[in-house]
């Protein structure tokens, strides 16, 4: 697939595009981690990023909400636009950007606070609500959407770290939902979970697609096939192939993609 670098603003037919990346190069010090990446992430779809370890898929994910800014030696070239607006523009505030583009991490990382405060943290710092019924409403609806409400509604005051691994990860998803983002980035959200908890999260991702645009990095190709509509295959810092998930898994155009999904390397 050819990438047209002049195609800056999303447009044309087909589903609306949420995020556009063009000519993205990322360097850690002198080492180049990503090489001329360009892709369009469609609205209200699940886009899976797959590829062997160290191929740059997590790095690319972290570019989408500027999490790489926290790494001193990381340098980014190229342009990434959210709804047509360059997120690396000087006028963009990372605080607002990350409120619009939430993130769920590989290892569940609940804050050492109560379950309630874990969810309330984001809305509070963004001034969406203070204490009171308004906040209770946000906490409840976030937990409900993350499918955790029934399990924790009687123990909201207990520490979030006391939950099981799968519950913790759903708590982290609820925490991300609570600030009403438009995009949710998930960095191998199930790799620390058992198969039952994984099934739970996958179901949840499918439901969330209705309201959010989701980008998920995964090592598990069955998972990519199950939850995503679009899949991008990364290899050695290059994006080898990007297409509908069904196409990628049934009819890969590139030899390397075929090798990876059939398990011949990676």
């Amino acid at each position, binding site marked *: 697939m050819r990438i047209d670098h002049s195609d800056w603003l999303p447009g044309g037919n087909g589903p609306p595009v949420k995020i556009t990346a063009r000519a993205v190069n990322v360097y850690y010090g002198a080492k180049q981690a990503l090489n001329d990446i360009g892709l369009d992430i469609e609205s209200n779809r699940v886009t899976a990023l797959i590829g062997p370890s160290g191929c740059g898929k997590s790095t690319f994910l972290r570019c989408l909400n500027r999490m790489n800014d926290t790494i*001193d030696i990381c340098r980014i070239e190229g342009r990434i636009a959210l709804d047509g607006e360059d997120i690396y523009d000087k006028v963009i505030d*990372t605080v607002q*950007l990350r409120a619009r583009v939430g*993130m769920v991490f590989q*290892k569940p*990382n609940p804050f*050492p606070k109560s379950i309630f405060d874990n969810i309330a*943290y984001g809305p509070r*710092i963004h001034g969406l609500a203070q204490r009171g019924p308004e906040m209770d409403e946000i906490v409840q609806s976030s937990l409900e959407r993350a499918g955790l409400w029934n399990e924790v509604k009687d123990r909201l005051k207990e520490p979030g770290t006391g939950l099981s691994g799968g519950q913790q990860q759903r708590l982290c998803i609820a925490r991300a939902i609570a*600030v009403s983002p438009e995009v949710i980035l998930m960095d191998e959200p199930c790799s620390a979970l058992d198969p039952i908890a994984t099934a739970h999260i996958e179901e949840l991702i499918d439901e969330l697609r209705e309201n959010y645009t989701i980008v998920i990095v995964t090592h598990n190709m069955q998972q990519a096939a199950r939850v995503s509509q679009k899949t991008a295959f990364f290899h050695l810092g290059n994006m080898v192939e990007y297409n509908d998930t069904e196409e990628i898994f049934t009819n890969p155009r590139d030899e390397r993609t075929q090798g990876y999904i059939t398990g011949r390397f990676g």
Partner: protein
Amino acid sequence: MQSTILIAVIMGLTLVGYLLGRSRAVAVAGGRLSHLHSIPSYHGFFVAIWAGLPAFLLLAVWSCFQDQLIASLAMAGLPDTVRQADAQSLTLIKTNILNIAHGIATGSEPEPSLREAAATYNQLQSLAGFCLLALGSALALAGIVHARRQISMDMRARNRVERMLSIGLVLCSLVAILTTVGIVLSLLFEAIQFFSRVPITDFLFGLHWNPQAAFSGDAAGSFGAVPLFTGTLLITVIAMLVAVPIGLMAAIYMSEYATPGARAVAKPVLEILAGIPTVVYGFFAALTMAPAMQVLGSGLGFDVSSQSAMAAGLVMGIMIIPFVSSLSDDVINAVPQALRDGSYGLGATKSETIREIVLPAALPGIVGAVMLAISRAIGETMIVAMAAGLSANLTANPFAAVTTVTVQIASTIRGDQEFDSPKTLSVFGLGLVLFVVTLILNVVALRVVQKYREKYD
């Protein structure tokens, strides 16, 4: 002299024993080293232990009893008339004999009987020395022979050596524990003696501290320690008000904001502050800070004495900053990066993340650091003695001269003292209070740290 030679001999024999044991094991194995139960060096250690340990034990026991035994033997040779004397004069005579024996001039010409006893003493001493040398060397040699004979293919040398090692380690930790227990007990008994003369309630709740007055009259009324406790509290509070905010902010800067380069410079520099002797801080406080306080105070219309709690507290606070900052820096660094990422991922700013996530997660460690700093401040003596004075004023005014528990202990105990006057004994009462307070603080600090450790992860 002989015991020095003996120590050298035993150490030499221990080394020889090790080499002999190892070579014996190699010889026994006859080229099939892997068939030995233990590798040769364990056999070496086994023989070395047999060579060294019994001989050293003999040396230790012998030197405990040698002097007493020989002295009483020498005394036994004295005429009956002298030996009939009461216990006190006997001790005096014994001291005289020892003085003569060691060639220390006693002033007057000694009696012939004493001189004779001294000669006997010296004779016995050198005889005993040679006996010890001979016996010790023989014991070491016998140990080598005995142990070497036991070496065989199946001898479990490794297990025996490991066992001896673990016994040795247990003994070492016992020494540390027993010493502490001994110190506490001696503190306790002397304190009880003090409290039999001065009622404990008068001591703990009395408002008047003037130990000098105890010589001229009423002992009970002059040992009210409350002014010392309030003085300690006042200075500690001032020191903490300086050290905790500055130290904590410095720690946050170093762990969250500083570039690696700045951190590499700032952290060692701060830790150098901890290495400055407190005496140096003390004269800085007395010669620079206290006059500065006076100038500042008079400028603001206060009456500031030349020695003040403020000067001592401020300098002590500066001294404690590296404690707080270094320990807090460590605990802040130990907060997992994942928590910070989680917070940034929700759109939190750096200061929000630090305030809401990092500091609460690090709080137990920070509390522990502060507790340790408080016990350090309570125990500090030199700065207070130099900059805050010796007068036990009951006041909350930071610009007045106050004194602390530790300063009173130091100033009472220096110089020659009778050890049964209430003034001297009061030191043990103060020491006990100090010990109990710092113990409680340390226990609480450890508890807090342990209870909340691993809360994340």
